């Protein structure tokens, strides 16, 4: 009998109904698996998230560090450091009077932000337990309390548990996550379950998800400090690097087709996400990086040991890859094999014709340094002014010379001269010999010219000695050129809804309550001072630039009317993120200095 005859149709219908019910009743996982047998492209709804998650799994290994374990790796926030004091009294947070003074002693990270972990480990800050009133602490937080919301336990011990996060197929990029460094400031619910998603990757972190919910906004910028999480990207000791470089100078693998092929493999795996698949500096991380990755197709290289218009030598490029560039997002690739790094050098050179066309000049030979006597230092100090270094680098080497504000690099973007006084390592120079080299060769692509044709070696050593003596003499400016003083502009007449009085004390309570009283068009209101540093300790530059404020003098017509519309400062100063711009708070900005 045919299957389509009445009797069996009922039966098959029943079977169909039962199976539908069964499938619907199953768990999502089972349902998906079952439906996959019948259909393609079944959406994965096993974890309901609003955010599209990475499909690459990350293996999580617990690295429990206890003192008994012989192979214990020090956690970033070591228990041997002085214990954090949990201040539960109302004593002032710092004996120091102001944040500016406090910032003088705070340790900073590579991106000029405060290194809160180190500050706590050094005992400089003592996070205060803020007891919740009625269950929740309310924003906006003021200077009087550190904005820590802990509904946890003031005396709880830190959770000293490190996790090793290994992306599948990429063990080189294993990252170490220290719970201790987070739990001294935050409680479990700050991250779990929403922010602490294991299925994530760097694109999402840089875009502000998972770790990126805080890192890049209030904690260190992940794109500036790769090595803080990715242990293999930590720079090796200088002596190790020097050994490799002297080995490289004597003999290096030459460019063969096998080497170039290997170079391409290594490039795709390790370099292309910043430098781009075709070496043009437009990798997928590039939009997040403040210092743009090098565009190899132009053939312009910043760090070299040749002078004039000559391109860098192979060893120069190898050195840059090995050492990385501190102060930028280029990490040290020391952990890659020596031969792999050489393969990269040869592959990178193929992105441009410049190496084929130009004759590779000899690198300058850096002679033995003379003794840094008082006389040499005095000569160097005098030469620093004679040669005009102070025009950009400033008299004390802090990068605030008179020509500094107008400097632009070859791409037309503003660029700052290096701040020697901060004591940070230069991008390609780690020693007076390195300074010598940079002074002679200049930095192509930037305003820094090469002095190789106009200085002799004694003059260059004198300059290097003087620069060395300037290091650590002035704090790195915490923000860009400090505070911005907004000079009072004439307010156009139509902006003043009501000219009341310049004497606030004569106003009644009702009058004070009215919004319109902001615009007191008198000359007695002091000009506004905007403190960059105070914002910089919390936010990275891109929080405001360029979406809220364009970085061009005169390009932002900031008026109180605009702020009442929610523009400019009022984007955050609206009572929700930060204090509202209102009558009691005029004095916070309009401060006579």
């Amino acid at each position, binding site marked *: 009998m045919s299957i389509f005859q009445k009797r069996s149709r009922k039966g098959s219908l029943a079977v169909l109904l039962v199976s539908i019910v069964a499938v619907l009743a199953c768990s999502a996982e089972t349902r998906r698996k079952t439906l996959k047998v019948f259909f393609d492209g079944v959406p994965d709804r096993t974890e309901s998230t609003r955010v599209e998650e990475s499909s690459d799994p990350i293996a999580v290994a617990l690295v429990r560090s206890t003192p008994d374990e012989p192979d214990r790796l020090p956690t970033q926030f070591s228990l041997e450091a002085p214990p954090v004091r949990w201040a539960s009294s109302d004593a002032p947070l710092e004996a120091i009077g102001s944040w500016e003074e406090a910032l003088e002693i705070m340790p900073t990270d590579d991106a000029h932000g405060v290194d809160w972990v180190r500050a706590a480990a050094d005992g400089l800050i003592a996070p205060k337990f803020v007891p919740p009133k009625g269950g929740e602490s309310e924003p906006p937080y003021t200077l009087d309390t550190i904005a820590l919301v802990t509904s946890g336990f003031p005396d709880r011990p830190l959770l000293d548990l490190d996790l090793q996060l290994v992306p599948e197929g990429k063990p080189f990029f294993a990252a170490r996550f220290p719970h201790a460094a987070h739990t001294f400031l935050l409680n479990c619910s700050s991250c779990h379950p929403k922010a602490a998603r294991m299925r994530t990757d760097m694109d999402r972190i840089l875009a502000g998800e998972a770790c990126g919910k805080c890192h890049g906004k209030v904690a260190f910028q992940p794109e500036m400090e790769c090595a803080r999480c990715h242990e293999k990207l930590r720079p090796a000791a200088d002596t190790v690097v020097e050994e490799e470089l002297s080995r490289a100078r004597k003999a290096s693998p030459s460019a063969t087709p096998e080497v170039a092929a290997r170079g391409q493999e290594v490039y795709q795996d390790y370099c292309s996400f910043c430098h781009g698949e075709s070496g043009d500096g437009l990798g997928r991380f590039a939009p997040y990086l403040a210092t743009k990755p090098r565009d190899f197709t132009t053939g*312009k290289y910043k760090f070299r040991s040749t002078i*004039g*218009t000559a391109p860098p030598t192979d060893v120069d490029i190898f050195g840059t890859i090995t050492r990385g560039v501190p102060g930028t997002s280029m990490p040290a690739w020391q952990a890659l094999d020596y031969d792999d790094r050489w393969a990269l050098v040869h592959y990178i050179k193929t992105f441009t014709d*410049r190496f084929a066309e*130009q004759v590779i000049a000899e690198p300058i030979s850096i002679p033995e340094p003379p003794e840094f006597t008082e006389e040499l230092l005095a000569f160097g100090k005098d030469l620093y002014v*004679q*040669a*005009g*270094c102070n*025009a*950009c680098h400033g008299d004390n080497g802090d990068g605030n*010379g*008179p*020509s500094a*504000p*107008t*400097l*632009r690099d*070859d791409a037309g973007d503003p660029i700052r001269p290096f701040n020697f006084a901060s004591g940070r390592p230069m991008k390609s120079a780690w020693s007076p010999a390195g300074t010598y080299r940079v002074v002679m060769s*200049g930095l*192509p692509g930037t*305003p*820094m*010219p*090469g*002095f190789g*044709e*106009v200085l002799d070696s004694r003059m260059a050593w004198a300059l290097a000695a003087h620069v060395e003596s300037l290091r650590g003499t002035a704090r790195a400016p915490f923000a860009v050129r400090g505070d911005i003083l907004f000079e009072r502009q004439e307010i156009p007449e139509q902006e003043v809804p009501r000219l009341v009085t310049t004497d606030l004390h004569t106003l009644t309570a009702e009058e004070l309550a009215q919004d319109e009283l902001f615009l007191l068009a008198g000359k007695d209101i002091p000009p506004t001072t905007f403190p960059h540093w105070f914002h910089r300790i919390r936010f990275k530059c891109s929080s405001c630039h360029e979406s809220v404020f364009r970085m061009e003098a005169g390009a932002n017509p900031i008026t109180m009317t605009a702020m009442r519309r929610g523009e400019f400062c009022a984007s955050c100063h609206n009572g929700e993120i930060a204090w509202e711009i209102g009558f009691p708070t005029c004095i916070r900005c309009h401060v006579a200095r």
Partner: protein
Amino acid sequence: MLRKSTRNQKKREIVGIVMVLAFGVLIGLPAAAGTIVGKVKYDGTPPPPRTAKVEQNTEVCGTEQQSEFLIVGPDQGLKWAVVQVADAGGATPRSEPPTMDQNGCRFVPRVVIARPGEELAVLNSDGILHNVHTVSEKNTPINKAQPGFVKSLPVTFAEPEMVRLKCDVHGWMRGWIMVTDDPAAVTDDSGSFTVTDVPAGTHEVTVWHEKLGRQTKEVTVADGGETVVDFRFSPK
């Protein structure tokens, strides 16, 4: 008497010497060349110059610097335009190498013409730090420091190109170097120019100005003659 073969050899030698001498005379003769003269004019009023406030080296640079990208003389003559005769290269070598001075924190002259491979001497009359920073595509950019104690710094360009010159220490400074083998000239205060040593024949003559762009005309030059060509730029 000389043997016959030696006599022939001598004859050949004498013929050879005479040929070489004649060739030399022909080479030495001046090539047929003419001159192109004219005026470049601008048909409008230039905008008021922009001012930059000087923050450093005020004793040499003054307190203010004005922009000079469009200088028009009283008779609408356009200054600092370059007239170039295309593909008429191999002009006779110059007697003096070209120079570019840094004087009063300005490049003097604003536009200079150099040959590919020829040394351009950059002078520093100011006695303060300037850097010679070129912006170019075909030539590798140069960025050399010229502290006050370096009075002259040579730079060379390999490829024909219009090279922009700037100083990073003094951001308003602007100069141009036309690197070319062709006969060329720069207009003066009244917009007049004279291009010498133009081979006789028909050529394309191009005028370039940094803000107003280029214009081209076809010109015929007679041997030993003076051809007049005028150009006119209009405000867009």
